Every structure is written in C-alpha cells, then in structure tokens.
C-alpha cells in the first residue's frame, strides 16, 4: 500500500512551514523571515540611528521631509526542518490482519505525516532532514534542499514503511534519543517529533534538551483508536509488545472508565508541559487523515501557513 498519491501531494504546493523562534538561516531561502533584511521587498521605515548603513537611507524621503529614514526590507531566509519519527514497536500498532497493514497503523500514519511535512519543507526551499529513530539506531535522510528532492524523500519513506511496519524488536527511550539528537545536530530549526510517547523514559527531558539547543518543537502525538478507547473486556494479561512486560487486569466498564481517566491525565500532563514551553502539541488519532491534521490542526497552531 502506497503512502502517498500524486493528487494528494499537489495540495501541498501552496503550503509553507513557519517557525516563530528559529534563528535566521545561513542561506537565503525563498521564505520570508520575520527579520528585516537586505532583500528588495519593502517592509517598513525607521528613524536613522548612528552607525546605520547610509546605503539604506531613503534619500527621496530625506529630500522631501529633510529627515533621515532608514528603509527596511524583508529578509528572506531558509529554515532547517527536522522531522523525527519514532519507529519503536509500539508505533507498529495495531497489527493488521493477514499481513496487511492496518488502516489505522500508527507508524504508517507517522511516515505519512513525515512525508507530507518534508515535502512542504522541500517545496518552500527549506533544509529538510528526516530521521527514523529507535533506541537501537537511526535512519537519516538529508539534509536536502529543493523540490527536486521530493521524490527521493518519498521513496525513502516508502522503503522504510515496508521494512518497519512489519514489526521487530525495537524500543525507544525518547529522553536519550532526543538528547542525543539535540547534541549532534548542527543547525537547530523547526523540529517535528512524531511519536506515541509510549516509552519508558521521560520524554520531557528530551524535549527540554531540544529547546535548550534552540529548536522550535512541534509534537505530533499519535495514538491509535484502540489505545484511546480500548475495546477489551474480561480478565486479561496484557503483554507489552515492546518490552514484553505483563499487566494483569480485569476489565469491565468501571476499569475502562479508570483507564480513560488515566489516559486523560497523562495526555493532559504532556499538553500542559508543552504549553508552558511553547511546544506545539497535537494529539492525533491514527485513523484521522493526514490532510485533516496538516490543513486544520497544524494551521490552527500556526505551524503551517
């Protein structure tokens, strides 16, 4: 099953990614920066101050008003876009029937998102790098710039979709992986973290590490419908597909209520943490379409324009 089709990708041509707090890119990109710069596009005037470059004084205005004004122009810049996809076994969920990939498979959904976001970035001239990681290792793509890299990105994701969705024995410790990524990265930028956050480590440490390096983080929290409201009942021994840990529970309506409460508390905790640190947080059920998430949820958050 293919991750993308051509028609869907065309919708993305109008979109750009924006980052509020990311530093100016080193190369001139074809995105508008919030920074005033030296491009031709007029932005604003301001009073002359000592030491300003006289080349940028607006002589016409000076002649008319006999007061010096500096002409500000829009700076154009490029953006480093990092897309991190958690590929642990908990993401390879739910298992499909007869070797098929389930339609609400979390990793597939995650790869779709990664592809879409990366494609948008490439179209708008950003420096895009995609990393599929687990605690054992990572698969990197990029960084690349330019729309010509769109096709290779998609191929990379399709290939990994085939490999990873089959499952295996992959675990993630998000705190370690994120800290590692933060240390190793050469250029901070807009970072999309796509994960279910079902991990042993504390994801907040990893996020803090990224923030301290100057990343602007967008957290896309992907959970399957079966995790949001489990359709389980009876006396069960629940086995963790990732760690093999077991939990014995007796499930009735009461227990499911309790689970729902726990889930809500957990998710609320993460959401509050992110809100306090300027991390864009979105919970996405894996049976939602990526169009809905990108075009509505991320637009509302100002990440996509």
């Amino acid at each position, binding site marked *: 099953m293919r991750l993308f089709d051509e028609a869907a990708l065309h919708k993305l041509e109008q979109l750009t990614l924006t980052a509020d707090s990311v530093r100016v890119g080193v190369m001139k990109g074809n995105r508008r920066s919030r920074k005033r710069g030296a491009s031709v596009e007029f932005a604003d005037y301001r009073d002359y101050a000592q030491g300003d470059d006289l080349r940028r004084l607006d002589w016409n205005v000076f002649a008319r008003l006999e007061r010096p004004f500096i002409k500000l122009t829009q700076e154009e810049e490029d953006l480093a876009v990092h897309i991190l996809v958690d590929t642990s076994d908990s993401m390879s969920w739910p298992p499909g029937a007869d070797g098929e990939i389930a339609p609400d498979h979390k990793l597939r959904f995650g790869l779709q998102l990664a592809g879409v976001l990366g494609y948008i970035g490439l179209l708008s001239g950003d420096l895009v790098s995609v990393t599929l990681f687990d605690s054992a290792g990572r698969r990197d793509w990029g960084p690349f710039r330019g729309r010509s890299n769109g096709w290779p990105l998609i191929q990379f994701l399709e290939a990994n979709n085939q490999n990873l969705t089959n499952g295996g024995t992959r675990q993630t410790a998000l705190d370690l992986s994120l800290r590692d990524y933060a240390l190793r990265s050469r250029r901070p930028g807009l970072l999309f973290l796509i994960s279910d956050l079902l991990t042993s480590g504390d994801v907040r440490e990893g996020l803090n590490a990224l923030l301290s390096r100057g990343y602007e983080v967008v957290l896309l929290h992907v959970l399957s419908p079966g995790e949001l409201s489990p359709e389980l*009942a009876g006396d*069960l021994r629940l086995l963790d597909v990732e760690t093999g840990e077991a*939990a014995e529970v007796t499930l009735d*309506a009461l227990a499911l*209520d309790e689970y729902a409460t726990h*889930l809500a508390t957990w998710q609320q905790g993460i959401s509050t943490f992110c809100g306090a640190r300027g991390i864009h947080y979105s919970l996405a059920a894996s049976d939602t379409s990526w169009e809905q998430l990108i075009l509505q949820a991320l637009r509302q958050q100002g990440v996509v324009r």
Partner: protein
Amino acid sequence: MSLLVPGALILGLLAAPIILLYMLKLRRRDQVVSSTLLWQELVKDRTANAPWQRLRRNLLLLLQLLILAMLVLALARPYWQSSRGANGNLIVLLDSSASMQATDGEAGASRFVDAKAEVERLIDGLNIGDQMTLVLVGRTPSVPIAMTNDRPLLRQALKQAEPENGSADWASAFILAATTSQGLIDPRIVIISDGGLPETLPALPGEVAFIPVGRSDENLAITAMATRPAGEARDLLVSVANKGQSPGQAVLSLYIDNVLFDSQRIGIGADQASHLSWSVPAKANMIEGRLEAMTGTIDHLAIDNQAWAISGGQATHRVLLVSEENLFLERFFAIMPGYELVRVPKSDIEQWPEAGGEFDLYIFDGVTIPEQLPTGSILIINPQPGTGTEGPHPAIQVTGSFTETAITRLADDPLLTNVDWQAINIAEAQFVSAPGLATLVASETGPLVLAGEIDGRRVALLTFDLHRSDLPLQIAFPVIMANIVDWLNPGRVVAAEESPQPGAVVTLIPNARAESIAITHPDGTVTEISRQESGAPILFNDTQQIGVYTVSYRINSGEIRSEQFAINFFNPEESRIKPSDSVYIGSSEIVSDSDGFIRRWELWPYLLLAGLCILMIEWWATYQRGIRRPPFLKFK
C-alpha cells in the same frame, strides 16, 4: 427475628468455593497491547488497598454472593415473632358457651364479638401454606370450616358463628381437636375463651395457646325457679344469685300468664344468693320471673335474668279403671289432684270403649288385656290369660303364674326411685312375656314390674295382684304409683322433666289422637312435626332458645289443644362469668402469656423472591458488561 433452622447457615460456607472459583477463574487471557504504560497505573490503583480489592469491585461476584446469602437465609427460615396470632396448622377452639354473651367488652360489645375479633386477627396473620380449622365449642362442638387457607371462607364461617345459650362441651371439643390435628405437621391449638374449662381436660398434641376474653365478673342471675302444689294454691320458689364481687341491687318481677303479679326489690351481697318464695294461684299456668339490675349495679349477662315455670296443673286427667274393685287405686286417685277416675266393672270389659268417651289413662286390673289397646297410656295390673279366641294382646302374653317372688333383680330406673322393694312381699304373680317392655323388677322366676312403649303409648305392667301383696300397705305404694303415673304422663304431650336447659332434648309423646303437631318457639317461629306412623315419641332438640315453647296439636275431633314447656337458663357455671387467665390442660397450666404463643412471620418466600430478583440483575449485568467510550475522546 430468629431462625427456625439455624443449622442451614452452615451452607453459607459455600461462599468460599464461589470466591475460590472467582480467584481461579482469573486465569487471564493473554492480550498483546502496544504498551502497558497506562495499564500499569490501573493495576497499581486496583491492587493498592487490599488483595481482595478486585473481588470487592467485581459486581458479578457480589451478586452471586448475595444470591447465595438469600438462598441460605431462606433455608434457615427466619421469622418475625409477635405475641398475637399464630401460624402453622391452626385449630381454633372458639368458646360459644352462654357466658360469652356477657357484654363486658369495649363499648358494650360481647365477649363473643371480642373473641371473633381475635380469630379475625389470626385469619389475617395466616401465611401462605398455613391452614386453619375453626371449632365452635358449644353444647355440641361443631366444625364450620376445616383446614383451609381461604380467608374469605374463614371470615364467612366466622361471621356466621353465634354464641349458644348453654354450656360448652370442652371434653368433646378436645377430642375433636385431637383427631383433627392427627397427621398435621406442627399443629397449634388456640383456645379462645373466658375460662370455665374443666380442669380434667386431656393433653393435646402440638402447641396449645390460650387467648382470654372478658374483663368483669359482675352478673346477677335467676338460678332457680320452681313451683309445687300447696293445698289450694301453689308455692313458687325463686333463687337469685349475685355472681360478682360487689353487692348489687335488683328488682325481681313476677308475671303470671303475662300479667304482673308482684315486684320485689332485693339486695344481694357479693357472691351471695337470695331465695324468695311466693304463693301463687293454683290456676296459674305460666309464671315468668324477670330480674332487672338497678342503677349502679352492673349486670353483664342478660340471658340469665329471665326464667319461666309452667305448672300446667289445672287440667283434669280422666282415668278409666277396669276392675272388679280396687280400693287402693281408687283412694290413690282421689288424693292425687287433677285426676278424675271412672271405674268399669270387670264384667263390662266389652263395653269399656263406650264408657264415656276418651280417657287419658287406662288401668286394667285383673282382666284379660283387650286385643285392641286404647289410644292412651295404660297401666296393667295382674293381667289374666285369654279365654278362647279372645285376646290377649299379641305383645303381652300371659302364660301362667308363679309363687317364687323373692325380688332378685332391680333395674336402675327413675320409676323405682325412693322405693324399698326388699320390704315388699308378693304371694303370687303372673308369668308375662312382653318383648316390648323392659323388666324393672324381677324375681328368680319371672318379672314383677315392666314398663315400656307399645305402638307409641306408654305401658306399665305390674304382674301381681295388689291384693295378694303387701305393697298397698307400704309407704312405698303412693311413691311408686306417683312415679308410674308421672311417667305415663297421661294426657300430656310433653314428657315431664325438671326444667330442661337450652339444647336439651324434649320428648314429645303424641297423643294417639293427635293429627299434627306444631311447636311455636319463643321467637315466634313455628316448627311443624308430622306424627310418626309408629307412634314413637318425638325427640325435639331445637331448644337453643330460652323461653316458653308452645306445642299445639289437633285431635281427630277437630279440637286444638296446646301445651307449653319452658327452656330455662339455670346454669350456675355459666352465670359465673368471671374470666380466667389460664386453663389447665393435661397436667400443665396454659397461661395467656405471649411466650406460650408464638406467631411466626416466615420470611423465606420474600428471600427467595429477592434472590430471584438479584439473579435477574446478575443476568442483566453479565450482558451489560460492555465498553463505554470515555466522553473526552470523542474529539473526532
């Protein structure tokens, strides 16, 4: 609340295997999930407090334990206990004697009404499976309704129950109760009475309880009233008794043939009796006494405040004596008041039917008994064997004479009272064989005195000649003659008896000439009795009412004659209305204590019902154990 079968509670231990099965049942199904991260929290929560926490929260287990509890409790048969009312197989002995008519209940209600209210309460308290038998203990105990749970029927039977005017036959009632309770499980006998039970009653099977009724013992009564001839007049004796514990005053009024004759105010001390006498005219037929308590004196029982005496002695009875000569008999009837004697010589025996019409008493003295007996009472003295084709009457065969007349056998009969037969000597007597008559006095060889009934008429027979014995010279002669004449009851329909009491059997000896008999009760109702073909005496037992009964009959000539007899209360035992709090049954005293009397409200049917309801809830819960989606996740 107590338990009938507390041992059944041990079945409660079955809860252990149920819980154990629940523990064992927790062999869990393996289910792979993406992560146990969130479930671990749940497990931590659920096992935090106690190991059996999850059992506590398991609704199904709880329901199953509840069902078990209900079943075990139902088997233990819990019951509420209260002091009024009983259940099981109830046999209610309801006293319906005369003293139950005493009006010492609330607002003047009679004891019987109170007793019925108690029975009503028992009926109300009947559980499913309980049965009740109602026994009315009167002169003859009756069972209006037996062994039923049908409350309307029981109430109907109770409603129709009325107190009687006589004493209660408790011994028979106990036998009835004992036979009824045979084969019943857990019989309970409830006696509702104001006391007055004899102390010699046998023990009863099962539990016996006693509910007393009645509060007061204040009662004035006429306990006796009788007349006797005294020269030209009659003497009347009336006894009035105060059965209560405080002195009382009353007015005793006498009515002779419904006209007030005299009225007297009398004061009687507590538990005392007063005897008064009057001289009343000899013509007086019906004398009625009425006792009325004066203001300030309490008299709870009204039924014993009236009494009647019927003298009826003014009629003259006609006697035909067929005899050669019998001075003794002629003298005797001359002395006896109210008798008119006509003597016909022995030679004129063929003409006796024409000797002046109808007679009430025929005496054949020393003659052959005619083949055709007259229609009246007959006294035969010294019968003679028949001659040729003439007589004797087939029922009385005379076959010769004997001289061995030493008296060897005496029957115990009222005819012979106050007679010393051993002092009587008889020279010769006739051999008489009369199968219809009973031998009262006999010698070794043959009978001397016989009495009985032949074709509906009373017949007395002396087999010896009065002149050939010393009987007429003895003081016994007038006594035995008076006895015989009284018994022969000439001319009267009602057999003389000393003031019969309510329910007593009154013997009616229909005159051979009577065509039909009608009896008018004190309340005016009339009972018609057809004369029986055999002419046998009629036993009239519909004498529950107190008062004067009039017996009317028409003789062939068309003349209607009437006679009266009175049924009097005269029952000192019933007049003593003091209620008692206990009765003696067998060798034990049953006290009207709530301890001896348990009413059980068994709860097991309700427990079973509750168990069934819980079972249905459990079934529902099993199928409703579904999944509910937390509302906050409906963000899609």
